[in-house]
């Protein structure tokens, strides 16, 4: 439903449907696979529409350089990185200011969920590689990283679920794609620990009245609860798979 006459893009048509046919409060399908990278202590692969992300966790492990270690808790490090071919125009592999900021906000979205006090003098390193970007990459990264952390056996207070809210043609929409981010009025990335009811990522880029913001937070909270169920399901399936393999292995 792209109307590029006079360079004006229609993001919501007269039927209330978005460019990819979704309704405003509809999320894209999320596929989560656990434990696909063998060297990492924990890993996950997430596909949210065309946004595709690998997340790996190494840790708890010894901190290098040593002067960064803390005596009472683990440090958490995070690297969010986009591959050069993940976007339409090739992106240089060197970290951009955006990737540096996103690495920080993702780390700060995940850390509240990790029981860092259990691992003094260690580091928990989270790596995220975006292999195809179609909007909401930081949110999908958090979804993947949370699952990777849990699959690494790191004690967590809760999982962290994340999604984005946008505003296109004056309508609040859930789970923003690249085109909605580029041509829309608002981008609001959001992450929370659904069981604890704590928001761990909140950014806004765009103009909203406070009442609209409240509505956006409600929409995002509801969506995060759904994503949470998918994350738990993916982890359970992996556990069942592992258990089966162990039992089969025990028989030989």
């Amino acid at each position, binding site marked *: 439903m792209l109307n590029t006459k006079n360079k004006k893009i229609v993001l919501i048509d007269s039927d209330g449907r978005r460019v990819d046919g979704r309704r405003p409060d509809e999320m894209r399908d999320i596929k989560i696979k656990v434990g696909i990278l063998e060297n990492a202590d924990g890993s996950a692969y997430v596909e949210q529409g065309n946004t595709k992300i690998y997340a790996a966790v190494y840790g708890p492990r010894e901190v290098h350089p040593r002067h960064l270690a803390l005596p009472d808790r683990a440090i958490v490090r995070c690297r969010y990185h986009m591959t050069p071919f993940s976007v339409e125009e090739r992106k240089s592999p060197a970290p951009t200011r955006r990737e540096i900021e996103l690495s920080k906000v993702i780390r*700060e979205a995940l850390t509240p969920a990790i029981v860092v006090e259990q691992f003094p003098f260690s580091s928990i390193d989270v790596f995220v590689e975006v292999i195809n970007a179609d909007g909401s990459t930081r949110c999908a990264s958090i979804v993947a990283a949370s699952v990777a952390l849990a699959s690494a056996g790191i004690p967590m207070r809760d999982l962290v679920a994340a999604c984005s809210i946008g505003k296109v043609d004056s309508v609040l929409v859930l789970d923003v794609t690249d085109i909605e981010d580029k041509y829309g009025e608002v981008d609001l990335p959001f992450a929370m620990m659904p069981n604890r009811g704590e*928001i*761990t990522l909140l950014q806004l880029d765009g103009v909203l009245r406070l009442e609209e*913001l409240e509505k956006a*937070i409600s929409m995002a909270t509801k969506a995060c609860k759904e994503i949470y169920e998918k994350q738990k399901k993916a982890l359970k399936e992996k556990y069942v798979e592992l258990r089966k393999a162990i039992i089969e292995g025990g028989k030989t």
Partner: protein
Amino acid sequence: MLDMLSSGLRVDGRGLEDLRPVEIKCRSVNNAEGSAEVRLGKTLAIAGVKTSIGTPFADTPDMGVLIVNAEFLPIASPSFEPGPPDENAIELARVIDRGLRRSEMIDLRQLCILPGKAVWELWVDIHALNHDGNLMDTSALAAVAALLTSEVPKAMVNEKGEVIVNKNEKQKLPIKCIPITITVAKIGDKLLVDPCLDEEEVADVFLTATFVDDKVCTIQKRGEKGLTEEETLKCLRVAQRKARELLKIVKEVIGYG
């Protein structure tokens, strides 16, 4: 500190919602098109605005270009190391950039000289000079004050299609509104506006919001803890109120109508 806070007092005697005394000094840098030194209590930041003529981005051929950079150098604090901007300085610059851009403080279309070929580039550089907490709001205010009081040369296109700059004819930047940034810190269950350094070092989480005409155009949650929805909305309502207050101060000090 938590004991004092439970009786509504902060280490420097302020109430939970009090800003530190604000000082704004503009136009002290002759060589810059615009500049402002802003103090929030003991925190001091300076912003400078330089203009140059450049080519516009391909997808916005009729809009000027805004670039915001921030440096946290050792002059401002024993905890800052020399070198390129770290994640904190980069985050600060990008948050302030979003505040300026999303509020549309500067009408970038009016900075177009020759569509597709020549536009004004606005370079906003922010340097922290003394860090006593809340460099974010101090820097944001410095950037805004510098832009409000900038004087840029006039540029025009002659019959041959060449860009001529007249350095003797100066004009203000095309300003549409004044965005104001307020940061609220959470310590225990208390929400504090404009945290000083001692408070920043023990705070669990920060919420920064930029307001224009009572609407919010930028939000950034910082810190390694979380906030409930209720706490978030409370922070934003307090920030909205303080933004109105700070806007009044800015208009008075700069004499902006």
